[in-house]
């Protein structure tokens, strides 16, 4: 039995080195949800497909869906490294420690971890997207369009990534509507359609009429659709254009969307690996790099608001405007950005406080 196992693993290792020595390059992806979630994982998979499309036969793309964060993911990543992957993209925050642990054992394999900050070995890079740029645009739209002056944010986990999104959303709504009130609900999951819908329902029942979600499914939009046009929401991670119009042809709940486009990054990194220019990096792209895209706006948004939003998109893309520009204050009223000062990436990545005006508290 043991001898058989040894033989089997020797064969696997043999295969692995053989595959590494010759083309095609093996690019592997670990997904936290199903590709069919219509949001986060779907977009990562679009990026993977773009890699295949760009490089054709020179690259093999493999993936594993619905890998739970934690110990299971370490097994999956190890298995991928053993089976000849040259570069492994792990696409959820919770894969951070497993990715680094596996990377220590496979120094020749390149590891790329999304949305994390740990790069404990020279073969681990990290990459993320400046989603808060998109939150700024939808926050502006929400602030201009709300009739009840209550806007909502369905939040997943209290991590800096989500908190900076909440701050950006609220700040840009308040800038155009001083009376706006922000309602945050924490669902403590990235993907649970029923719970996401329950969260949207709770907000709608309390008079919230503009909702953005930081979770992965389309369920909040479906719940908003039940309001029959008195409340709106935004596509999250993916365009979610199916909710732009209702079945009867009337205006749907999705008025625009924040799209994560991972294709430019994935194509670039796999290309660098193939032509030998690959280096360890910490990448944080946004609208200028084409990694954060605002989806088509529907006519539910008044023309002047559309024009303002478009102006903001252009300013951010051109690098003229940073959504965290001072003066800005925290909830205690302490100033953390001077007039005209823009935030550094370090403090932004560690953001653990709400800005002034948000009445809720961040759960521990």
């Amino acid at each position, binding site marked *: 039995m043991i001898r058989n196992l040894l033989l089997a693993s020797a064969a696997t290792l043999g295969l692995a080195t053989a595959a590494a020595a010759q083309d095609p390059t093996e690019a592997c992806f670990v997904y936290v*949800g*199903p*590709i*069919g*979630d*219509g949001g986060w994982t779907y977009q990562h998979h679009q990026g993977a497909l773009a890699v295949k499309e760009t490089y054709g036969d020179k690259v093999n793309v493999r993936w594993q869906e*619905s890998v739970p964060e934690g110990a299971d993911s370490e097994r999956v990543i190890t298995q991928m490294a053993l089976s000849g992957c040259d570069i492994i993209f792990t696409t959820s925050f919770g894969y951070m420690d497993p990715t680094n642990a596996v990377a220590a054992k496979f120094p020749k394999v390149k590891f790329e971890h999304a949305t994390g900050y740990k790069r404990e070995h020279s073969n681990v890079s990290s990459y993320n997207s400046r989603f808060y740029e998109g939150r700024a645009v939808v926050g502006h739209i929400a602030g201009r369009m709300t009739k009840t002056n209550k806007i*909502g944010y369905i939040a997943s986990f209290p991590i800096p990534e989500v908190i900076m999104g909440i701050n950006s959303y609220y700040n840009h709504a308040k800038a155009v509507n001083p009376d706006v009130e922000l*309602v*945050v*609900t*924490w*669902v*403590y*999951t990235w*993907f*649970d*359609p*029923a*719970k996401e*819908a*329950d*969260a949207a*329902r*709770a*907000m709608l*029942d*309390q*008079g*919230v009429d503009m909702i953005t979600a930081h979770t992965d*499914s*389309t*369920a909040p939009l*479906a*719940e908003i659709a039940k309001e029959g046009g008195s409340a709106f929401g935004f596509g999250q991670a993916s365009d979610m254009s*199916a909710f732009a119009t209702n*079945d009867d042809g009337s205006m749907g709940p999705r008025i625009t969307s924040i799209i994560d486009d991972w294709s430019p990054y994935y194509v670039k990194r796999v290309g660098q690996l193939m032509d030998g220019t690959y280096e360890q990096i910490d990448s944080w792209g946004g609208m200028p790099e084409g990694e954060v895209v605002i989806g088509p706006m529907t006519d539910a948004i008044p023309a002047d608001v559309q024009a303002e939003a478009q102006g903001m998109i252009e300013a951010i893309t051109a690098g003229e405007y940073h959504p965290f520009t001072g003066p800005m204050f925290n909830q205690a009223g302490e100033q953390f950005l001077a007039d005209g000062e823009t935030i550094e990436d370090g403090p932004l990545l560690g953001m653990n406080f709400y800005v002034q005006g948000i*009445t*809720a*508290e*961040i*759960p521990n």
Partner: protein
Amino acid sequence: MDLSAIDPALLVAALMVSATPILLAALGEMVVERAGVLNLGVEGMMIIGAVTGFIVGFNTEVPALGFVAAAFASALLALAFGLLTQVLLSNQVATGLGLTLVGLGLSALLGKPYEGMKAPTLSQIDFGPLSDLPFLGPVLFGHDPVVYLSLLLVLVVWYVIKHTRVGLILRAVGENHDAAHALGYKVVRIRLAAIAFGGSLAGLGGAYLSLVRLPQWTEGMTAGAGWIALAIVVFASWRAGRVLIGAYLFGGLTVLQLNLQAAGVTIGVQYLSMAPYLITILVLVLITSGKGRGSHAAPASLGRAFQQSR
């Protein structure tokens, strides 16, 4: 913090809708367990119901047909479990877990072409002016037919198990299958019927998610609802009325904590989301310690294989 923003009527109405899938699934599982069978495949049967209901509802544009198809499909899947565990005498725990894996995988495959589509949904029953009553209107007269069906089923299951001969036989099989067999009852056949019934209710619960609650098909959309249903059965110490309480408590606490959050309350929210599970553990402790009213509530033959020749 603005608690006045929470409208109790809307809260109760929302929790009834939110709890209906787990209520249906838990009720079915309770009947299965009363017959002495432990089917851990509730999650798998629910999601097969969800995908079948959506596919049929989408293609026929008649949501009611979707529910019927979902009940049949999940009953069929449950019968596969029945065949393996009752006839071929496989281990119930392992087979049940396998059923969940099969259900999740199969539903993902079947549902692929239906992602991102919208199906016609059930509309609320029109009670006329009754729906406009303060409080009672939205709570009692503002729902779709399945919510009422689920409540009716609780009543029927309670009555049948407690007051009819069929219920007595079912309980006999669950408490002591050898004795029931000696009395001439067809243990395997009765258990298969219970398994099919449990499957069809899990299927209805799943279809409620994909046709009413959300309404859409997303892979893995049950997201653990089947496991909550299993917990509710234990919580309810195998009584129909308590299944209702348990389901509304589980669903209610989720809805309540989200509403409290939306109203600006943050402290204690995590504890509130934990509460149903803590209570379930507490109930389990009470049952196994032999104290309290729920003690010895578990059917004595639960999970044990029945072999006629023994």
